[in-house]
């Protein structure tokens, strides 16, 4: 095989991977980490450790993930008290009943926010996160600042996200240092009576399910 021609072809094939939002970013494929990743990909595929198709398929799955999976689970818990009870007792079984295939809730624990308890999740040792429910963690969750500070001064950190809690509320931090993964079930905000499950699901942001914010009804919903 002509090594150079092979590599040129591979490099060209890689260049067709674009930003999924179709924005006009220039990808510098000669920067260290794009090069390193492509080099590893070529080597592992050539040696038969992985297949190019598997890599492509996994990327497609990542990009196709719904942003509303977590919100769907929360919305169902808000409208169905029996489901909520099952969710808090055994997340795996309750979520399996909903029939959401991409969620592996084997080690998921759902923790409930109430009038007296507010939960917030971190992984101080790395960045463990309920990926099968929420997708990839945000940059701030993985940051030194969050990982260092939220265990020691959770109320100050929550304030940076715009969340302030009365002293009568217990703030409960969950450091996901082992096999369990945590999802916060936020309180249903007032002013959402009669809303459809779909509307409720879209109200629940990822940040609410990590526990740094609470769901808010947009101002225009109060009209009429």
């Amino acid at each position, binding site marked *: 095989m002509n090594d150079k021609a092979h590599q040129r072809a591979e490099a060209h094939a890689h260049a067709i991977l674009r930003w999924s939002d179709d924005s006009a970013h220039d990808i510098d494929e000669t920067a260290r980490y794009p090069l390193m990743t492509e080099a590893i990909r070529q080597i592992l595929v050539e040696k038969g450790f992985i297949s190019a198709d598997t890599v492509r398929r996994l990327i497609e799955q990542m990009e196709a993930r719904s942003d509303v999976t977590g919100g769907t689970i929360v919305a169902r818990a808000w409208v169905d008290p029996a489901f909520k009870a099952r969710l808090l007792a055994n997340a795996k079984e309750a979520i399996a009943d909903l029939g959401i295939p991409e969620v592996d809730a084997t080690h998921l624990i759902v923790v409930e926010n109430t009038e007296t308890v507010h939960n917030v999740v971190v992984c*101080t040792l790395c960045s463990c996160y309920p990926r099968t429910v929420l997708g990839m963690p945000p940059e701030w969750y993985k940051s030194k600042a969050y990982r260092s500070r939220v265990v*020691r001064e959770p*109320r100050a950190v929550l304030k940076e996200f715009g969340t302030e809690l009365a*002293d009568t509320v217990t703030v*409960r*931090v969950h450091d996901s240092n082992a*096999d369990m993964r945590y999802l916060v079930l936020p309180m249903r905000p007032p002013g959402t009576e009669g809303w459809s499950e779909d509307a409720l699901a879209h109200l629940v942001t990822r940040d609410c399910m990590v526990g740094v914010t609470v769901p808010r009804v947009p101002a225009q919903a109060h009209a009429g």
Partner: protein
Amino acid sequence: MSPAAVSPRRFAPGDRVTVVYTHPPGHRRIPSYIRGKLGLVERYCGAFPNPEELAYGFDGLPARHLYRVRFQQTAIWPAYNGPAHDTLDLEIYEHWLRPAEEDVS
């Protein structure tokens, strides 16, 4: 994995426990800030292969018992800035826990 290969559980919810104070080298999933601290077993999480061994290519068996332990924030941090009822939960493997009464402070 045969249940007979897993030892009986040493702790139950409500037990007062102390995290062993030690700093062995290698891959450990017990943050230093919690080592030596006193907490309460909140629930049993199951038995899992030991990550300290999985990290080096061993099978981590027999599985170790994992407990969710709840700590008062004021018991962890000097000058914690918040109410005394704020808490922190972590999962701790059985071999990192001792009954609280065993420790003389």
